[in-house]
């Protein structure tokens, strides 16, 4: 009980503090609403990366694995939406900077990592939609490999940016994202449990 409360408290703190720091950044005063929204969509995308492995592994106390997996799919869809808003909003704010980034021609080193993570997120969405066609084995391997690329790309992207997020709270959130992602993509425990639940319930 105490452990569950501590996990939830830590989880919520890891999400709320960086979001609060970003939402109260002095830089916001000098940005148009569409730029503010684009930036915050990026912050939310990073936050969702902390949520995803925890849901997939059933690590959040009180959220059963099967339910966590259902939410995980919707969170994944939200991640795609957040990336579209992030890139679309930046495009409206400064089209040439986004074109440079998307064509891997940007002077800023972080852009390339963000674009790589973006494509890996889109590829995951496509793979998820095709998962029944491609088979569980390929889907599992593909999802895990892409998840690694997404997390590595996003963390490098976020850390190298001087933006609305606070340096310290951003670093802590990024470390946490890496810490929860690695066991999720390396271990087979979560997948084995999911396969068991899927075969016994007959769904999926």
């Amino acid at each position, binding site marked *: 009980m105490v452990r569950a409360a501590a996990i939830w408290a830590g989880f919520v703190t890891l999400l709320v503090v960086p979001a609060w720091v970003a939402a109260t950044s002095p830089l916001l005063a000098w940005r148009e609403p569409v730029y503010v929204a684009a930036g915050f969509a990026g912050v939310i995308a990073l936050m969702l990366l902390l949520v995803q492995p925890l849901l997939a592994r059933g690590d959040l106390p009180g959220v059963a694995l099967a339910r966590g997996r259902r939410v995980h799919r919707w969170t994944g869809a939200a991640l795609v939406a957040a990336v579209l808003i992030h890139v679309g909003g930046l495009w409206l704010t*400064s089209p040439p900077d986004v074109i440079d980034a998307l064509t891997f021609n*940007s002077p*800023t080193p972080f852009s390339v990592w963000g674009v790589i993570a973006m494509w890996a997120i889109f590829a995951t969405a496509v793979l998820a939609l095709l998962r029944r066609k491609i088979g569980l084995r390929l889907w599992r391997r593909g999802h895990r490999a892409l998840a690694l690329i997404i997390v590595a790309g996003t963390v490098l992207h976020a850390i190298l940016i001087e933006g609305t997020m606070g340096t310290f709270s951003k670093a802590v959130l990024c470390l946490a994202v890496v810490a929860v992602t690695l066991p999720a993509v390396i271990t087979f425990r979560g997948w084995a449990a999911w396969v068991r639940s899927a075969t016994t319930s007959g769904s999926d």
Partner: protein
Amino acid sequence: MTDFSPIRRALVVSASAAAATGLSGLLVPAFAQGLAPTPTMRGGANNYRPGAPIVERIGGGGFWMTGTVRRAGDGAPLPGQRIQIWAHTTEGHERDPQSHGATLTDATGAFRLEMPQIVPAFGQPHGHLAYDDPEFETVFLRPVMASARDTSLHVDFVLKPV
């Protein structure tokens, strides 16, 4: 991150003088004996609005963009050259017309234009400068500030005659 910035700034801003002499000198035989021209930087021309008016000051001021303009080869200072400047500042985005202005170099080839404080945008606190007139080849620069708290930025142009 701030720790890396002085290095980056040194690389980016002073590339014109130091690095160019050594590196591009090999690639541009005509200038092998002297000062090599400043290459255009990636993204330097982003949100450029050609023909920004020559102004006493951009907006309310408070931040100084300074620099020099010299001729490639002999390094002679170039007076009367128009340098166009824009940035994301406390008074507007890069695309906004009020964020753009131009100034002329003095007799010593130096320029300085007061403008609003540059604030980080698109991940870095940076400015944009352009030389875009017929006499020399066009150059677009995108220097990055060592710190977002800096209140000035210095940029050197070395221009190649057309």
